[in-house]
């Protein structure tokens, strides 16, 4: 009797423990091998771009917090850069340094979650995740000192930041910086050479250099595939050209390289924070701009190196107090276009790991 096999469609639904949010994948399987995958999203489409057309420039900042909700400071920063480019506003020095410190601290906090959930997907159920959370709580305490909030900060304004650092911030930051490298070394010792991690992620889900550039991947995903492109070096914004840091690049583009890339980037962020702390000048923290900013007619695009990739804001203005069009370039959505090529030929268990190594946030995909 001849046996016939047919491909079978499996729906990994919007409510799933490993899909990092409400994200749905329809996987076509041949046995256990994945043949094709169709991502379905839109379950968190809140209409942020439409809402932004009805709000003034400064009141869009809380909306941008909720885009990639685990790295709110970077979102605020990108939006404020775009408005300042459009309206040609010069930001004072102290505000620039404060913004850099906040953005790099936020990068460390966000990469901790990325790495923790990747290890969660690999099978180390919750233990490394909770270790990461312990460190993230310290960073979140620093942010709470500055802005009063734990998750969506709403700290930056057009022309600077909303208020100056309190006096207890710098001693607390110094204490954190002394403790953090010891934690990173402990973490490296526990996990880098772990057999299970290497067996599950080495050589899995390879993204070649040409595919990465063609799918416009950005951030750690692009650099893990061998492309040396970091916006902080290639097109420096704010005061990043005054700091001395390296851009780690890995070679093969598999899941283990992406994980390693994120850990190395955390170390470089700590280097930048140390230099910014030493060079912090004094002065005003906000430029003299009216609260209702009215930029001239025109358009501007400003991009920023977020923990997930390249976040950009494209603003079109018609000389009124609200933007005519505000488009957000989401790094998670565009990194996902490479998912189909990465996943073909692997099994379902590898699908979860490959998907976790891209590190998406659904709030940014759906906006």
């Amino acid at each position: 009797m001849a046996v016939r096999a047919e491909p079978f469609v499996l729906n990994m639904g919007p409510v799933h423990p490993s899909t990092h949010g409400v994200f749905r994948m329809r996987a076509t399987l041949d046995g256990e091998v994945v043949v094709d995958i169709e991502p379905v999203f839109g379950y968190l489409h809140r209409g942020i771009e439409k809402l932004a057309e009805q709000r003034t420039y400064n009141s869009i900042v809380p909306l941008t917090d909720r885009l990639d909700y685990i790295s709110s400071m970077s979102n605020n920063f990108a939006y404020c850069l775009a408005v300042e480019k459009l309206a040609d506003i010069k930001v004072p020095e102290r505000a620039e340094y404060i913004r850099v410190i906040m953005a790099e601290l936020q990068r460390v906090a966000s990469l901790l979650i990325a790495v923790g959930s990747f290890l969660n997907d690999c099978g180390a159920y919750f233990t490394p995740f909770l270790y990461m959370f312990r460190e993230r709580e310290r960073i979140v305490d620093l942010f709470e000192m500055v802005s009063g909030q734990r998750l969506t900060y709403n700290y930056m304004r057009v022309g600077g930041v909303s208020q100056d650092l309190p006096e207890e911030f710098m001693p607390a930051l110094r204490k954190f910086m002394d403790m953090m490298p010891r934690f990173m070394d402990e973490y490296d010792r526990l996990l880098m050479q772990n057999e299970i991690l290497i067996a599950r992620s080495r050589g899995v889900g390879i993204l070649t250099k040409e595919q990465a550039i063609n799918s416009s991947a950005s951030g750690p995903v692009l650099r893990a595939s061998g492309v040396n492109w970091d916006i902080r070096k290639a097109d420096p914004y704010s005061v990043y050209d005054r700091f001395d840091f390296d851009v780690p690049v890995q070679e093969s583009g598999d899941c283990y390289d992406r994980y390693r890339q994120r850990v190395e980037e955390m170390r470089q962020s700590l280097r930048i924070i140390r230099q910014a702390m030493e060079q912090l000048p004094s002065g005003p923290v906000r430029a003299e701009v009216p609260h209702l900013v009215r930029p001239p007619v025109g358009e501007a695009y400003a991009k920023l190196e977020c923990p997930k990739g390249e976040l950009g804001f494209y603003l079109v203005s018609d000389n009124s107090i609200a933007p005519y069009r505000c488009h957000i370039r989401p790094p998670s959505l565009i990194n996902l276009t490479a998912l189909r090529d990465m996943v073909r030929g692997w099994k379902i268990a590898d699908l979860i790991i490959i998907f976790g190594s891209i590190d998406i946030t659904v709030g940014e995909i759906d906006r």
Partner: protein
Amino acid sequence: MTVALSGKEVATKIEEKFSGSVVESSPENLVVKSDNLLDVARFLKETEGLDFDYLNFVTAVDYYDHFEVAYLLSSLEHNHSLMVKARCYDRENPALPSVVSVWQSADFQEREIYDLFGINFEGHPNMKRIFLWDGFEGHPLRKDYL
């Protein structure tokens, strides 16, 4: 620093190859006719010296009498960038050729523009709504929706 190439210089190069395809050019951007969009895209990607292999974003803006679709292209090797635009004057059934075969990252972004603005991209392998559900009527980001 990424150098933003002037639209005028690139316009002369495009005019040599495909005459009549540039509608207007200025130092900030370059507006191309919608029929020649795919040829111009391939030309910009493959020519030595331009090498625009990285598509930053694709988006659309609704000016009341026409739609304008903007593409920001970059070259990682030479570190320069260029903004290309195409206009669509039809309000009922706007259509443009799709550039998915040139840059694969336009896949989801063109579906998003179809969903929110209604612009149809010909040649796209999977043209259906992406953020809103299948029976939704209307295109929310148009200026005359609500």
